[in-house]
């Protein structure tokens, strides 16, 4: 097959590209320029998409002897990922931009361009597995399923839970059967200079990790009250958009709780620019409603037993789920905390990713 290997400049995508080449595919390396100011040199190892990262990717492609190009997707990324991220926070929700990027950029804009230019698929360095199962009903007689990676600690199937069957049919994740430790060793063995490059963390377009400061730069200071559940003001904030349900740190409350117990954000109300805090118990929910359902295969029919995961590298919680068009209802076996609107709930059946939805609401029986 003719395959575009998306190469960030990191160790994972370098090995992914090599493995596609070893498997006999015709591979072209593509680095996505996602930053509006691509020609920046950043000192820290965090973030990505700097000119140095593009250079690292190029050097790996040189070693592999494959063609390499930089494709400019900065405008699409700004519109579909960054603007969405800001709008979601402004609306009081907590989005995961990596899911959005996979859905709209890597397996949409990039994949579509690749297909148009004559490629068959896109390969990335995500830790996840695509398992092919014979299925007479499937178009090519084979059903492609998305599964967790063998390296539990590194598994990235959560951020791929937005891929539909068509996208999965064109996706390769060559690292899913290997641990990160072994991938680094393999990179070193292959002589890649990026073998010891630190992992990127956090959100690539907020390289210093200060999401609140970054949002404040874009949305401005909007001071307002922090209230307790009785409606009494217990503090002030500089913008309700910067708070997330379940958050405990950085609240700066001026009035202590009567019982001295720690308090958490239990709700943010963008319309009234209010943040509400309460006890840990108030965070517990066992019913989640989500919209923007995405199925990594056929949509489930009726009520299905699943494992629900609500954040990257979070735990999987036993649940039942049923779908109704774009909407998904999830009933958890036990209460869990820290469920914020805007997060994605990804549903698993064993190691298989069933699909995902964006959380709109959560409560308890």
């Amino acid at each position: 097959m003719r395959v575009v290997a998306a190469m960030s400049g990191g160790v994972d995508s370098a090995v992914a590209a090599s493995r596609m080449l070893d498997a006999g595919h015709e591979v072209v390396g593509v680095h996505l320029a996602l930053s509006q100011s691509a020609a920046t040199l950043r000192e820290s190892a965090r973030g990505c998409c700097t000119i140095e990262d593009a250079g690292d990717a190029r050097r790996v492609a040189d070693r592999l002897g494959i063609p390499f190009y930089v494709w400019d997707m900065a405008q699409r990324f700004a519109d579909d990922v960054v603007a969405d991220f800001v709008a979601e926070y402004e609306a009081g929700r907590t989005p995961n931009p990596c899911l959005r990027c996979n859905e709209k950029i890597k397996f949409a804009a990039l994949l579509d361009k690749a297909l148009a230019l004559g490629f068959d698929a896109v390969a990335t360095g995500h830790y996840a597995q695509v398992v092919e199962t014979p299925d007479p009903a499937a178009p090519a007689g084979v059903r492609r399923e998305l599964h967790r990676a063998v390296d539990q600690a590194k598994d990235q199937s959560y951020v791929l839970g937005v891929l539909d069957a068509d996208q999965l049919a064109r996706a390769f994740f060559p690292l899913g059967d290997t641990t990160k430790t072994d991938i680094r060793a393999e990179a070193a063995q292959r002589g890649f200079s990026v073998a010891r490059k630190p992992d990127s963390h956090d959100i690539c377009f907020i390289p210093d990790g200060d999401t609140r400061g970054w949002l404040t730069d874009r949305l401005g200071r909007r001071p307002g009250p922090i209230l307790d559940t009785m409606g009494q003001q217990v503090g002030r904030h500089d913008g309700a958009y910067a708070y997330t349900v379940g958050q405990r740190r950085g609240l700066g409350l001026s009035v202590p709780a009567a019982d001295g117990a720690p308090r958490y954000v239990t709700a943010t109300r963008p319309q009234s620019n209010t943040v509400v805090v309460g006890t840990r118990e108030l965070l517990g929910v066992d019913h989640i409603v989500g919209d923007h359902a995405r199925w990594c295969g056929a949509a489930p029919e009726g009520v299905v037993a699943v494992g629900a995961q609500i954040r990257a590298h979070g735990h999987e919680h036993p649940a039942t789920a049923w779908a109704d068009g774009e909407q998904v209802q999830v009933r958890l076996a036990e209460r869990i905390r820290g469920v914020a609107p805007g997060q994605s709930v990804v549903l698993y059946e064993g190691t298989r990713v069933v699909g995902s939805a964006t959380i709109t609401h959560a409560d308890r029986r």
Partner: protein
Amino acid sequence: MSVYLDHAATTPVLPEVIDVVARTMRDVGNASSLHTAGRSARRVVEEGRESIAEDLGVRPSEVIFTSGGTESDNMAIKGTLWRRSAGDPRRRRMLISAIEHHAVLDAVDFLVTTGQADVTWLMPDEAGVVTPDVLRSAVEADPDSVALVSVMWANNEVGVVQPVCELAAVAREYGVPMHTDAVQAVGHLDLDLGSCRADLITATGHKLGAPVGIGVLLAARDQDPVPLTHGGGQERQIRSGTLDVPGVAGLARAVRIAVARQREEAPRLASLRDELIEGARAIDPSISVNGFWVPGEVHRRLPGNAHLRVPDCDGDSLLYVLDAAGVQCSTGSACQAGVPQPSHVLLAMGMSESEARGALRLTLGHTSSAADVRGFLEALPTGLERSRRARMATARAS
């Protein structure tokens, strides 16, 4: 199959030049040393200088060796601005064509953003030509404030040749120094630099068959640009640095060959260029040529330059598909971190950003043949089809 159609980026070094460079490189000697080896190196340099001066119609003392086009342009722009404004602080306005190479543009930008100078841009017409009238009215807005004029001889993207002699005449009327970046012109056009009387002329080796790393600034004897680098004072106290003896020998040989062959090479390349353009337009009649073009003409457009406007197409996608088919060409515009930017040249010629993205530059040179043109034309239909699909796929309104 490998088809190289990017000679304007760099052209293969001539075999005769490789020989002379390799031979010269075997000899030790700093051209500034006083002993035998030094004198022998100096002789090579001076013979090279005389040879280049003779071939280009200037005096040997006007030839200043540099590392190439970027350095020569920077020396001419910054050095002349500094010299002129030191003489009279009112003289801080630079008249610069809007289609210059970044070696000029960014030097100008540096002087302006650091508060050392002002700039008046000389806009080209739709054919890409800066007319003498445009220059005259820019000067006349305030003649006493003008520090220098810079208009390139031939544009590196669209290949349009500027009326440099007429522009230089206008500048001379007002006593203003005129610089021209002739990197794409020397060896490719029938030039008589001596009678044209531009005061400062940039040329470089690797566009005419010499290696990268050697070039010249031809500076009239009354020109005294302030040096950018300070050191041993080689090259008229204007450009310091140990002379690149093999580079000078190679450049002299390359200039001699290019100038000697120019009169027969120009019509040969123009005919290949016309075949390429007409072939592309036969494949897709919506393709047009950017900048002045008349078939067979070898004076007003670089003979080897075909710059195509391809509607509904991103140049970088087209470049990829052609590259995959073994055809190497360029979108012509500058890259930022590998990402092509819409060309400032096309924008200055009145094109929209979207139109400017659908540009493809194919440049022929001394190794080009009809087979190269055929190779391109064979790869073009698939290239057009795929890159247009890619544009449809990625340009959807979000």
